[in-house]
């Protein structure tokens, strides 16, 4: 045993290692990504990135059917993609334990919605543990594998951003030994979910859930903390920590298993208090079930459904008083949103799309930042892969010039995740929309993870690499062309031609992410601006490069300067300058 400071994600990886997991699979997604990046550090687990969450879960299920313990990880919206196998997996149950770690993102720190994945536990009839710190993330991971096999069911381990990314002190343990070796075992009544078999399994699922609810009433993960006073709190996950901050005198029923609920335990606890709170983030998931038991509680009548909880928000909700800070900022402050990196190959593409007045159906990735000013070149963004279908739908209902304006924009990883199906539809059903694939050879937004077209695996081993151009041609797109996004004019003309073409077409802008370490050679000598030549026309500011800074007080009407520490010499700005003011830094 040793003490370490681990994030929730690191602790889940450690827990999986200790639980004897053989296979770990995921598609990256904030805030879940580091789970697999960390399982990859333990050679006893086969860790891999799948092209999407559905495939990840299906791979995990295969390993589980072979008798191995498997861990599958994803963010909340990824769970929507994996929902199809999920809802039947609860019927088949498991051979080796299967744990699905799902990370929700209350407050939408890095997501497109704020869904509460606890509803999936109920909808898919699958038990769900929820840790409240890193120690529990480790312990519950181990526990979840044991319970998975004990109750013949896959199990959720749900975290939220503040659990996944918080670090706290963890005592690690030793890996379990004596798990059975994987093997083939035919059991069609359990693993072949045709109606005749599945009908019977449904009864088993219901029975197992009942048993587990009963069992959980006496387990230490559902724990009562007795304190004096007549206020009681039912809570789980990170909300437990906030409840302890705000109501230190209250007795607490802390739920480690949030589905199914330990009803007897809850009923016994509830009857002892005059005032009973349910403190939970997002939806009234526990609250509704407790109310359905005929128990009166205070919950979402004062606590917010939208946004994450914080100690301050819980305090204000319970006291009914707004907190007044001791110090204030009296002036309006410029915001500092994230931006595409200096030297990002996507920047020029969005500049071109803006000049072409394209209506851009966007997608999920770094390039979603193309929405931000000054580029402001994204008009829709729904979910992974949606750019393609959205473009097709618009193409169906528009006419003339409007119809030509529609361009879908998608990254290489997102295209493989779920864009390719949209492209098949585009060809099959005669859409004339244009799709731009921003191929930067990596899954960049989540921190540069490999994908099937990047040429490497999660372990960093060289792998077969999908040829995106051939892939598009193989589904029947006749007009597929590659352009160099560092060349603004070439990029603009290529997209323009394809927009005008009355057939489906794909433009692949090919240039690696500037942050890929193995491509570090693409960084060039930084540029500088000759102050004598800069007229202050602001043309170069239109690409929104963080390395170009406006000096309002320089010259008569201001001048641009390059921050040499940030500039990687990509030269997009140079192509925008009509006065030849950009030059390479000497001795740079």
């Amino acid at each position: 045993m040793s003490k370490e400071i681990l994030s929730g994600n690191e602790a889940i990886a450690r827990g999986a290692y200790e639980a004897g997991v053989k296979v770990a699979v995921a598609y990256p997604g904030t805030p879940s990504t580091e789970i697999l990046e960390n399982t990859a550090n333990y050679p006893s687990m086969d860790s891999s990135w799948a092209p999407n969450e559905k495939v990840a879960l299906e791979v995990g299920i295969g390993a589980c059917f072979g008798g191995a313990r498997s861990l599958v990880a994803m963010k909340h919206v990824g769970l929507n993609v994996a929902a199809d196998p999920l809802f039947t997996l609860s019927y088949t149950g498991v051979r080796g334990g299967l744990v699905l770690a799902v990370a929700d993102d209350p407050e939408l720190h890095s997501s497109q919605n704020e869904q509460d994945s606890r509803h999936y536990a109920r909808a898919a009839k699958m038990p769900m543990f929820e840790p409240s710190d890193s120690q529990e993330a480790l312990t519950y991971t181990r526990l979840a594998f044991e319970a998975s096999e004990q109750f013949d069911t896959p199990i959720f381990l749900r975290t939220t951003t503040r659990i996944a990314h918080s670090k706290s002190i963890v005592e690690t343990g030793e890996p379990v030994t004596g798990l059975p070796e994987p093997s083939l075992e035919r059991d069609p009544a359990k693993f072949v979910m045709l109606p005749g078999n599945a009908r019977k399994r449904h009864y088993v699922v219901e029975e197992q859930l009942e048993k587990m609810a009963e069992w959980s009433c006496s387990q230490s993960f559902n724990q009562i903390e007795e304190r004096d006073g007549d206020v009681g709190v039912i809570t789980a996950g990170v909300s437990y920590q906030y409840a302890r901050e705000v109501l230190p005198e209250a007795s607490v029923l802390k739920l480690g298993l949030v589905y199914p609920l330990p009803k007897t335990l809850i009923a016994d606890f509830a009857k002892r208090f005059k005032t009973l709170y349910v403190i939970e983030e997002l939806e009234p998931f526990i609250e509704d079930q407790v109310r359905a038991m005929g128990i009166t509680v205070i919950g979402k009548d004062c606590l917010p459904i939208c946004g994450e909880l914080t100690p301050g928000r819980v305090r204000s909700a319970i006291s009914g008083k707004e907190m007044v800070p001791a110090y204030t900022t009296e002036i309006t402050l410029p915001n500092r949103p994230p931006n595409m990196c200096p030297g990002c190959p996507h920047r020029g593409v969005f500049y071109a799309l803006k000049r072409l007045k394209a209506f851009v159906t966007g997608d999920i990735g770094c390039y979603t930042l193309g929405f931000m000013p000054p580029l402001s070149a994204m008009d829709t963004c729904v979910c992974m892969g949606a750019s393609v279908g959205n473009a097709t739908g618009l193409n169906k209902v528009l006419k003339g010039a409007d119809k030509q304006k529609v361009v879908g924009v998608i990254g290489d990883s997102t295209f493989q995740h779920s864009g390719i199906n949209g492209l098949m539809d585009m060809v099959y059903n005669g859409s004339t929309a244009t799709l731009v694939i921003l191929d930067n050879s990596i899954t960049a937004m989540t921190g540069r993870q490999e994908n099937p077209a990047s040429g490497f695996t999660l372990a960093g081993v060289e792998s077969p690499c999908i040829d995106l151009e051939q892939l598009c041609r193989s589904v029947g797109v006749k007009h597929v062309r590659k352009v160099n996004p560092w060349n603004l004019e070439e990029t603009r003309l290529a997209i323009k031609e394809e927009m005008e073409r009355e057939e489906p077409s794909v433009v692949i802008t090919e240039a690696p992410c500037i942050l890929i370490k193995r491509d570090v050679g693409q960084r060039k000598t930084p540029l500088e601006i000759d102050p004598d030549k800069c007229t202050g026309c602001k043309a170069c500011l239109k690409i929104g490069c963080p390395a170009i800074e406006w000096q309002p007080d320089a010259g008569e009407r201001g001048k641009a300067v390059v921050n040499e520490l940030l500039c990687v010499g990509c030269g997009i700005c140079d192509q925008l300058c009509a006065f030849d003011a950009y030059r390479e830094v000497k001795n740079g």
Partner: protein
Amino acid sequence: MAKVTNILLAGVGGQGILLASEVLSEVLMLAGYDVKKNEIHGMSQRGGSVSSHVRFGEKVYSPIIPEGEADMLFGFELLETYRNLPFLKKGGQVIVNRLQLMPPSVATGMERYPENLEQLIADQVSDSQVVDGLELAIEAGNARTVNIALLGALANKLDIEQNLWIQAMEKMVPAKFLSQNLKAFELGRQAAN
């Protein structure tokens, strides 16, 4: 409830706040405290506002600092430090790096960077100190050691044995940059004296 001390680190993605808060948390654990630390990843590498919450004491519950309860605001950039003032509790301390980084709206000429932020902070917070991290880092021989130089300034305000700091840095800082970082740390300590 036993006293918990709250340190809020604030700055801009890419400034090394993550490493600084990792070292800080490690040191606090070595010193025998319960420690929790939280920051938001994901968007942070792309030049956006970044803050890291570090809490320590006998027993820490929430991984994020309750609003208005930061004992110390440890700022890597002026605007981000000023922005986070409402997190500071009455009578709290500020250590701030003398650095202005332009947000996109300023860099593109749509807004101006607020003036006199050092003064605005000093006017409100009596216990505030400005440190020139870049100057110290350059003196230490590597401009990329600003975060550790600033950590040295912070270390001066915390009652923790020097050898624990060194032990943590040895564990967490890449070996080839260790000596420069140790020097930056020491210069930071002296600067804040």
